[in-house]
């Protein structure tokens, strides 16, 4: 029995130590301002992390918006309120689905790519090489990727919401016959910029922070073998997903719960 407690205690301490390491890594990366080619490196990462995720975001947003329009219409017509489908689609997307789904997709696509890339650099001793040339790999490699993640996800979430709403419009208005005026009109009544859109963006920012951090730490601290990289990549996706859902609950309770 006592062994179990000791084992649990050790596990807990180990987890805490890992979190501490992760925090140190982050602080160390961001401590110094970027140097000569900082903007160029950031741009490169914005491309890899953001632009290359656009396709999956656009397609997913379109389909999710369309499904919401379809399901929403079906559910609301039972109450004769199908004209309210616009506000349903918009609120669902802006408050919940856009930040969460976009973040989950981001973790799977960009997050795992970041982890694998850094893990491979570690395994092929490129990170050690940088150190021996007097270049801090945290500063040169990790920092631009972190900032890119932080910038890209909120942008992608905004685009996701918009495309989803238009997807809903295609189904509800063009296909199912809801009046375009009602679709947009009800939506405008119900959606508040400060409360709904901004809160959704705050969620996106929090998720961006968490996913980028996890992805970069897993890559940086992985075991430098192919098995190690594979484990690290899987962990990135799993931990990111759990973190996104967990934080979503906390943020939703804080933002929308009281009212």
């Amino acid at each position, binding site marked *: 029995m006592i062994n179990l407690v000791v084992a649990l205690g050790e596990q807990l301490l180990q987890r805490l130590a890992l979190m501490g390491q992760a925090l140190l890594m982050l602080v160390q990366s961001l401590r110094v301002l970027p140097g000569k080619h900082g903007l160029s490196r950031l*741009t*490169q990462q*914005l*491309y890899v992390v*953001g*632009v290359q995720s*656009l396709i999956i975001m656009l397609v997913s947003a379109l389909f999710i918006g369309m499904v919401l329009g379809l399901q929403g219409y079906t559910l609301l017509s039972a*109450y*004769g*309120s199908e004209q309210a489908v616009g506000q349903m689609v*918009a609120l669902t997307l*802006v408050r919940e689905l856009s930040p969460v789904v976009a973040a989950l997709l981001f973790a799977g696509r960009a997050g795992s790519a970041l982890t694998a890339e850094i893990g491979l650099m570690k395994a092929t001793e490129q990170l050690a090489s940088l150190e021996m040339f007097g270049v801090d790999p945290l500063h040169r490699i990790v920092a631009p990727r972190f900032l890119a993640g932080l910038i*890209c996800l*909120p*942008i*992608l979430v*905004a*685009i996701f*919401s*918009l495309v989803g*709403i238009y997807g809903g419009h295609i189904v509800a208005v063009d296909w199912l016959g809801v009046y375009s005026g009602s679709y*947009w009109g009800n*939506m*405008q*009544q119900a*959606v*508040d*910029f400060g409360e*709904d*859109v901004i809160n959704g*963006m705050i969620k996106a920012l929090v998720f961006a922070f968490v996913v980028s951090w996890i992805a970069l730490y897993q890559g940086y601290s992985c075991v430098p073998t192919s098995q190690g990289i594979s484990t690290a990549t899987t962990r990135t996706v799993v931990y990111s997903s759990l973190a996104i859902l967990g934080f979503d609950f906390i943020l939703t309770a804080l933002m929308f719960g009281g009212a």
Partner: protein
Amino acid sequence: MHKRWIEISVGLMLVAGVAALLSLALQVSGGHLTRSADRYPIDALFENAAGLAPKAQVTLAGVTVGEVVAVVIDPQTLMAKVQMQINGEVNYLSIDSSASILTAGLLGEKYVGLTVGAEDEVLEAGDMIEDTQSALVLEELIGQFLLNLGDSN
């Protein structure tokens, strides 16, 4: 060359993001680019403001002319004081106008309906509407109905 494409596409993505955010602000949440600069405050006291919430519409003949900003208790009269912001161009509300709390749609959202009176003088910023009709409360209606039923018997 490749580098050029990277820079262009990143720029496009950033612009798209900002445009999306602006769209969300304007088209989706019905924001106004010009804000309360041209609105003026009007208050109204109600006996019962049940269900009226801030952001609710204020209408005149069914047309939105403003919105409810706050619903608070007036400490002197112990009635519900509804603070509204009316659009600047609606400057023909006579001082004997009346305000009622009405219900919209099936989901039961409350809103304020105004009716203009006969006087020449109009309401100005900070004035109070005195003729008010409170929200209909279901229990009171049933009580009233039963009372009438009892009377007729």
